[in-house]
């Protein structure tokens, strides 16, 4: 079974705005080839104010497709069309308290239905510019088409580069075989041969000058600056709860921090660290470990 949030389940069991809106003046019919799901969104837009007065959906699809459609109709009601167009698929997923990575395409389908419906209202023809493939990296929800196109556009030749450009493979690393297969295929188009030796698996080198280099391929100073900026952006949030965080040391993929104030000794500290780690991974596009600075002496002794 999928790990659906309570909100997803609730919207699936009790969908809002199911069915076609009467006197609708905007229709968006879209489907996601990636699982055969399809959605018809109908809107009633006030032609003067361009406010969406009513919205309804009909969906052929799984639990999260129905929940995403239901959420979308709730979100757009009362908005004017320009506002509504700003809704991203992430907004739909957030409204539902998240979707499993394999199911993010359901929220994409919702956003596309909205674009199609608005285009229909304005008498334009909507063209889809987005193609989906098999999900390769489950940590960061990156699909095959995305990796293929990035490899082709940037002439990537190593798994490491793919992780730097797309984040794919930057997490648990289970998908590296799949990424290699894409590289073999795309490189063959250009008459090149994939060479696994060209991309040694990211290792933590403990010689001093490389200690702070990560797997993102970023220059050392630039990477540290980036880490500092990210941590800086997290601080206000922690301060609000009476805590604080400071960067202590970066060793390869391990980042040591000090939790101070209300954060130190807080039972939630471990969870907060997890959140900080997630944030750093997403922003840096590489796998990192965040540990309390108290762990640092052990690492130094080990090196």
């Amino acid at each position, binding site marked *: 079974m999928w790990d659906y949030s309570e909100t997803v389940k609730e919207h699936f069991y009790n969908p809002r705005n199911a069915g076609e809106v009467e006197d609708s003046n905007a229709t968006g019919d879209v489907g*996601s080839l990636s699982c055969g799901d*399809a959605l018809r969104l109908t809107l009633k837009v006030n032609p003067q104010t361009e406010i969406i007065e009513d919205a309804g959906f009909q*969906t*052929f699809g*799984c639990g999260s497709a*129905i929940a995403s459609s239901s959420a979308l109709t709730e979100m757009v009601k009362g908005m004017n069309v320009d506002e509504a167009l700003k809704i991203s698929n992430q907004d739909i997923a957030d409204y539902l308290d998240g979707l499993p990575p394999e199911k993010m395409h359901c929220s994409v*389908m919702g956003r596309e239905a909205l674009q199609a419906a608005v285009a229909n209202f304005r008498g334009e023809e909507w063209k889809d510019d987005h193609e989906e493939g098999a999900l390769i990296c489950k940590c960061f929800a990156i699909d095959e088409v995305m990796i293929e196109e990035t490899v082709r556009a940037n002439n990537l030749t190593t798994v490491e580069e793919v992780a730097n450009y797309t984040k794919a493979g930057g997490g648990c690393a289970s998908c590296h075989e799949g990424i290699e297969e894409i590289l073999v295929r795309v490189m063959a188009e250009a008459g090149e041969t994939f060479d696994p030796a060209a991309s040694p698996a990211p290792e933590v080198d403990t010689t001093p000058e490389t200690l702070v280099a990560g797997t993102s391929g970023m220059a050392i100073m630039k990477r540290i600056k980036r880490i500092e900026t990210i941590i800086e952006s997290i601080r206000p949030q922690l301060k609000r709860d009476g805590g604080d965080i400071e960067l202590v040391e970066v060793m390869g993929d391990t980042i040591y921090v000090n939790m101070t104030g209300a954060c130190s000794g807080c039972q939630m500290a471990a969870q907060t660290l997890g959140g900080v780690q997630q944030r750093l991974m997403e922003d840096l596009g590489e796998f990192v470990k965040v540990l309390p600075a108290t762990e640092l002496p052990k690492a130094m002794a080990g090196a």
Partner: protein
Amino acid sequence: MADVYLDNNATTMVDPGVVEAMIPYFTEQFGNPSSMHSFGNKVGFALKQARGQVQKLLGAEYDSEIIFTSCGTESDSTAILSALKAQPDRNEIITTVVEHPAVLSLCEHLEKEGYKVHYLKVNEKGQLDLQEYKELLSERVAIVSVMWANNETGTLFPVLEMAELANAAGVIFHTDAVQAVGKIPMDLKSSKIDMLSISGHKLHAPKGIGVLYLRRGVRFRPLLRGGHQERGRRAGTENAASIVALGKAAEMASENMEFENTKVKAMRDRLEQGILKTVSHCFVTGDAENRLPNTSNIAFEFVEGEAILMLLNKQGIAASSGSACTSGSLEPSHVMRAMDIPYTAAHGSTRFSFSRYNTMDDVERVLEAIPPIIEKLRKLSPYWSSNGPVEEPEKAFAPTYA
């Protein structure tokens, strides 16, 4: 109300009698069967008994033809890779498009290594074309691997006949029989089947135990080399408790063979006919005349399987689906696609698989639950109008696909 479990092709409950039989092998009978002392000796005897029980269920000629493995997948891999290793001059494999991933993924991988794999197609009822098969048999083929019964539809393949044909052409024949063993009677000694895979957890033994049947005299190369366990054909300390469990489960399966083919079948048939009568626009997939007694796969048109399963689950009913969404893959079940079932029906295909622990009350519960669930989902479906599919559904609703 107790939950209704109709997903026995996925896995089964371990029979309480099986649990009872295996428990002593965790505690007082913990010895290594290879040891000389009495701690090990008794375990050795228990393994021998289990081997005999499995031999009897399969109708194998010798108990040494039973090799215990860790699962059905290991048995499949061992069989196929052994045939390739033992016959380096043969580089072709014959299998079918509807095999379990345990065989299909391995074959796709072997293709990348340079082997030629022939995938036999099926028709809309899931049946093979034996003429196509005959024409492919040659001295280039290292092994034929064809499932005995399909896990999704229960459709039976004519493996006895296919094994005869392979044998006549001098080709090794393997069958993945994880769904068939224990549900239909077998007498391997009178067949030409060379290798056969079993998975314990499909017949009320625990997960993590399987069997590869290997006919005496068939050339063999082990997958795992090491100690002398299983006569050197599968090294690694025996999973004694689970082997004892599988032995016991095999014995119970022999005793219940008639029950499976009468009582269990009657439950399946009652459910199927009941659903077909009360729900419009649905049909049985696979070869209804020639399938396992416990399996029914029904495609509900214009609705999606995962949504059906979630609503069933809410009422404590467990089944499974061939929809893409339940697996996280791109496509609906490769079995449904192979039979050319339209997308709008394949996505709604729902499998009900019984065991001897189900009752007619379970059937009645499901018969009550299904019609309102399908009705509710169809109301949400763009392919459905108030009381039937929209006219020309494919035209009335033709979304832009991405």
